[in-house]
């Protein structure tokens, strides 16, 4: 626990659907787990069991209702459940990267620039950001003729590769990966696996969801079944 990069302590989450007469939809209860540097913990369990919600709460994208999600930031620890928006944004800039299956498209910005911008935002030097963006896109086999086009026009798989490059360009200590290989073919999946293993070897803590068993087995150091954290639906 001492050197955990992220630790969930008794985390609970439910959605209240006010548009459906305030119906409560419990998702997770009592989730407790932690990820150390150099570990790749994969969340297992059937879909709809709140795996994505755990990642989103760690990223601050979903509100953490109960418990604490502590993220180590150098010498201090920030509880995302209680942090101010500014603190969370600061963590996102320096500590936490999140790669989902979906790219939030920014109109009119080319793929390479999208990736570069993520590097610049994380404080990379402009030259380094540019080189690294090119390296990543090449390794992910995105055709070079697409680099200056806005990803809005890309296929799902192409968009996903841009998204991965974006999440990996700055070497942050914590990576949250939500099915980053969902729409990739075998060759590109292998490239992503290699990138993840490199990041893990470099000391990143990784928490991810991978439906593809091959990918999961290739990257996981540990698998945590979230069924244990399944909230019981109130009668």
């Amino acid at each position, binding site marked *: 626990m001492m050197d955990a990069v992220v630790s969930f302590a008794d985390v609970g989450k439910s*959605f*209240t*659907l*006010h*548009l459906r007469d305030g119906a409560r939809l419990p998702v997770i209860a009592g989730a407790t787990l932690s990820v150390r540097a150099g570990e790749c913990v994969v969340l297992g369990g059937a879909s709809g069991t709140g795996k994505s919600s755990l990642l*989103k709460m760690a990223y*601050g*994208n*979903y*509100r953490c209702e109960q418990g604490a999600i502590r993220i180590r930031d150098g010498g201090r620890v920030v509880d995302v459940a209680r942090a101010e*928006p*500014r603190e*969370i*944004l*600061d963590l996102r800039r320096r500590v936490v990267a999140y790669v989902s299956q979906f790219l*939030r498209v*920014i*109109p*009119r*910005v080319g793929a390479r620039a999208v990736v570069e911008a993520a590097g610049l*935002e994380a404080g990379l030097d402009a030259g380094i950001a540019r080189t690294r963006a090119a390296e990543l896109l090449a390794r992910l086999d995105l055709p070079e003729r697409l680099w200056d086009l806005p990803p809005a026009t890309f296929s799902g798989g192409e968009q996903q590769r841009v998204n991965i490059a974006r999440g990996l360009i700055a070497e942050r200590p914590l990576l949250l990966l939500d099915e980053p290989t969902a729409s990739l073919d075998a060759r590109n999946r292998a490239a992503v696996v290699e990138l993840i293993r490199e990041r893990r070897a470099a000391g990143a803590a990784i928490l991810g969801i991978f439906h593809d068993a091959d990918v999961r087995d290739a990257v996981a150091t540990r698998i945590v079944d979230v069924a244990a954290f399944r909230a019981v639906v109130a009668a």
Partner: protein
Amino acid sequence: MSGPLLQVRGLAKRYGARLACDGVGFALHPGEVLAVVGESGSGKSTLLGLIAGEIAADAGSVTYRMRDGVARDLAALGPAERRALMRTDWGFVRQDATLGLRMAVSAGGNVGERLMGVGERHYGRIRATALDWLARVEIAADRVDEPPSRFSGGMRQRLQIARNLVTAPRLVLMDEPTSGLDVSVQARLLDTIRGLVAELGLAVIIVTHDLAVARLLSHRILVMRGGRVIETGLTDQVLDDPQAPYTQLLVASVLAA
């Protein structure tokens, strides 16, 4: 992280029986973009007017950290000081460009006005700066001597942005800057704003009814209804995991935010 640039406390404004703004407060730090969202009549534009001092508040205060680092209550500033602040360290991009621009003055003159207002008296430098800013907002250099009355809606908004940013303000207020524009024009304008805000590290308060605009530009969001703040927080958190019934309704009413 230093202290907040702007501190708003308990702002209230009543028009007869109607509360246009009721106890609104927040802090804004340098480089932060805050979106104020809500339907028309929610009080979001009134809030902007109160912050800018264009509407007199019934209660509450607005404190701003001046360039010398001293936080001042804006209501306590004299008119000269207040106006000087507004045309140097603040910007205000209005929904109706004809209120934010001088429609009979050339684009260059519109951009140059603030410079001349702070004592710049070299025509060549003023013009060079104006051309530089027109380029940054993607207005062709050969339009520099044309008045905005001949510009399209999108170009007028771009010109407003250039006119406001030329004195390197630290805080910019934007009131529905993209509404009424075609979707493609809107996308381009949003991209320009996004780029400049990031590049210049501007603090921005942007009023919009468009959640997609809030999502693209802002870090934090303030949801208003009936003059009150219903919900506030990190933009993507409020939009993806809305807590208040009204916010859920607002998010659900959008096709794809």
